[in-house]
């Protein structure tokens, strides 16, 4: 039997006393929903400004490296797949999850580092935060995504550390997954909208 208590959506079975969705996962999902709205707003603002511009990119501003960023995109997507493999292996054999998790983290690190390299290239070509709305939006949107990627990487590193020590709860790994899948899922949208 399933009961609802007061105003909380806290569905608990009579025979189970743990919630249907672990608290860590629910908290992370709520966070992801709010961050999705943030990115939605930024992408919307970018599209409106771009639609109103006579020329895009603005005169004198470099074109964004759409093709080379495809490498970064593939790396990030691969890290998502590796994290999924790690999460499937973890309940049966925690030790077998370490390698794919480590690979996912390294690919995530590569992504952030490559983004930094791209930024340095763009800065040297004259695209800065104040050079144009093109520059402002690029650094704002990609920068906010980068911050999320770094935070999600920190969560993965914490998960890795816990697995090494044998402390890792399945729910915490699931919460870390949710955050990383969000970072991975949002990036192709940003790449296709902002870099094109």
């Amino acid at each position, binding site marked *: *039997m*399933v009961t609802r208590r007061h105003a909380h*959506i806290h*569905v608990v*079975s*009579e*025979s*189970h006393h743990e919630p*249907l*969705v672990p608290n860590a996962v629910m908290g992370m*999902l709520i966070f992801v*929903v709010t961050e*999705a*709205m943030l990115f*939605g*707003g930024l*992408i*919307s*603002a970018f*599209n*409106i*400004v*771009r*639609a*109103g511009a006579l020329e895009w990119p603005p005169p004198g501003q470099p074109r964004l490296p759409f093709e080379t960023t495809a490498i970064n995109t593939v790396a990030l997507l691969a890290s998502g797949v590796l994290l999924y493999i790690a999460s499937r292996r973890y309940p049966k054999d925690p030790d077998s999850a370490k390698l794919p998790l480590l690979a996912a983290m390294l690919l995530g690190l590569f992504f952030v580092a490559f983004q930094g390299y791209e930024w340095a290239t763009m800065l040297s070509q004259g695209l800065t935060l104040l050079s144009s709305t093109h520059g402002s939006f690029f650094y704002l949107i990609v920068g906010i995504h980068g911050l999320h990627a770094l935070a999600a990487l920190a969560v993965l590193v914490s998960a890795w550390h816990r697995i090494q020590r044998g402390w890792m709860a399945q729910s915490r790994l699931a919460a870390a997954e949710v955050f990383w899948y969000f970072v991975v899922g949002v990036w192709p949208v940003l790449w296709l909208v902002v870099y094109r």
Partner: protein
Amino acid sequence: MLLLPSLADACMVCTGGNTEASQWAFIWTTAFMSVLPPLMIGGLVWWIRRLARQRAEQDARAEAVLDPTP
């Protein structure tokens, strides 16, 4: 805005939107931002309800195993 009123020049509603492309951009992005919250929250609710149903089925099966008498 009181301290830096010139920032209002950045408002696309006030200073832009006079081309067809701008108008369509406003329409599509408004639709996108309107649909996004119910889509996400609705998806979350659907998923939780599905988990609740699966657990109810598991409980029913467990009870049937423990007490097989009709």
